[in-house]
């Protein structure tokens, strides 16, 4: 599983390329073995198939499998593409985390705002597992490159004043999965790390923001639309 192999130690010094080459090599070997033994994806593109298999199987103890809550932090559109294995095709998808390192602290009801090259603005809301996704039919004219920001308000749906907002300064050139660049558990020369609202886990803890179970308890309010889209 990718995130266990990529387990990131926040205090460890950056060791640079040799270690990564090793890890990546191992990953590739792992992926090949997975292909050979499971052969789960029937796509004929070996690179695609290896990447999909490299993500490993669903983990039923962590999330309801094959649901909108599944595989947080993973590159959604790798599978949710015309190449499969998922049937639904996403033009964008990703996961928002509270801090830079903790995989288990994810942001519910975050507003992910997109400004595309045609200056079309759209906003999407994350679910209790921090996931958001955009189906092809929901943004069919999406035109890259895109600018993106993520906001979390104080009490989404009720108090919409900003708790924290972060804007990506660079743009997305062509990639549909946030996690292809924002590799979970890996901050290095080719990845800025998981999408985060705070720069340190401590900063997040100090705010005493409650974490939501997922699937959520009954009293949880899942916001469906960003404030600007509510009439």
């Amino acid at each position, binding site marked *: 599983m990718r995130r266990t192999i990529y387990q990131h130690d926040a205090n460890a010094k*950056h060791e640079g*390329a040799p270690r990564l080459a090793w890890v990546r090599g191992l990953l590739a070997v792992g992926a090949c073995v997975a292909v050979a033994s499971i052969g789960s994806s029937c796509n004929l593109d070996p690179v695609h198939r290896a990447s999909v298999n490299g993500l490993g199987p669903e983990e039923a103890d962590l999330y309801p499998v094959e649901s909108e809550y599944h595989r947080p932090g993973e590159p959604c559109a790798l599978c949710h593409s015309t190449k499969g294995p998922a049937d639904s095709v996403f033009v964008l998808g990703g996961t928002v985390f509270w801090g830079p390192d903790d995989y288990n602290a994810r942001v519910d009801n975050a507003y992910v705002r997109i400004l*595309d090259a045609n200056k079309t603005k759209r906003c999407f809301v994350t679910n209790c597992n921090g996931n958001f996704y955009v189906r092809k039919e929901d943004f069919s004219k999406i035109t890259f490159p895109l600018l993106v920001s993520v906001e979390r308000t104080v009490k989404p749906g009720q108090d919409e004043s900003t708790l924290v907002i972060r804007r990506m300064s660079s743009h997305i050139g*062509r*990639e549909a999965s946030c996690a292809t*660049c924002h590799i979970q558990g890996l901050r290095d020369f080719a990845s*800025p790390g998981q999408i985060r609202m705070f720069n340190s886990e401590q900063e997040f803890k100090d705010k005493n923001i409650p974490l939501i179970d997922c699937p959520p308890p009954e009293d949880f309010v899942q916001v469906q639309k960003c404030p600007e889209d509510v009439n």
Partner: protein
Amino acid sequence: MFALTSRSALLLGIAVLGGMGALVTGSTSCASPPDNKRYTEILQPDYATYRTYVDPYLQRRCGTLDCHGQPGRAYRIYGFAGFRLYNVDAGLVSGQQPTTEDEVLANYQAAVALEPEEMSRLMATQGAEPNKLLLLRKPLKLERHKGGPAMSEDDAGYRCVVAWLRIRTVRPTADGLDFETIPEQEREQLPVLARQRCEEAQSFP
């Protein structure tokens, strides 16, 4: 002993190779020995202008991690918000430390080394027919480009790059038989309008 045998086998191999080498050189002695001091100089575009005006645009427009900020690209771009140049001491992380001088230089070299002969031709003719350069043919989509059209002839970014390529960096030598590099302090500056275009292009999209 194994170690010994394998070593002597190696020695034997070298001896055989040496013998063959001697044979080959002996029989082809009419070929002149290669001159390792000889090289073809690339006529290069202006670095100072590239660094200040062009690189910020190319980084932003082309250098994201999903495009040219990737080790798989022949034209590879490094920088703050993308791929970082490997450096043991600096430990550069995507999105953390500002772009370094080494990275800008690597970007410049990548742009020049993409088609060194074509770049030399362009410099020798003071930027005439810039669209022959792969660096522009691809984003203009005059040629297949995985990233689709990324520039058009009427956008600020394209004009910024072309204005940079027009800066004269070489002149004919006194005898007219060769080119010499114009010292940096004697070079013309990027015109004001072109500078504005470069700045405008950086705010993309």
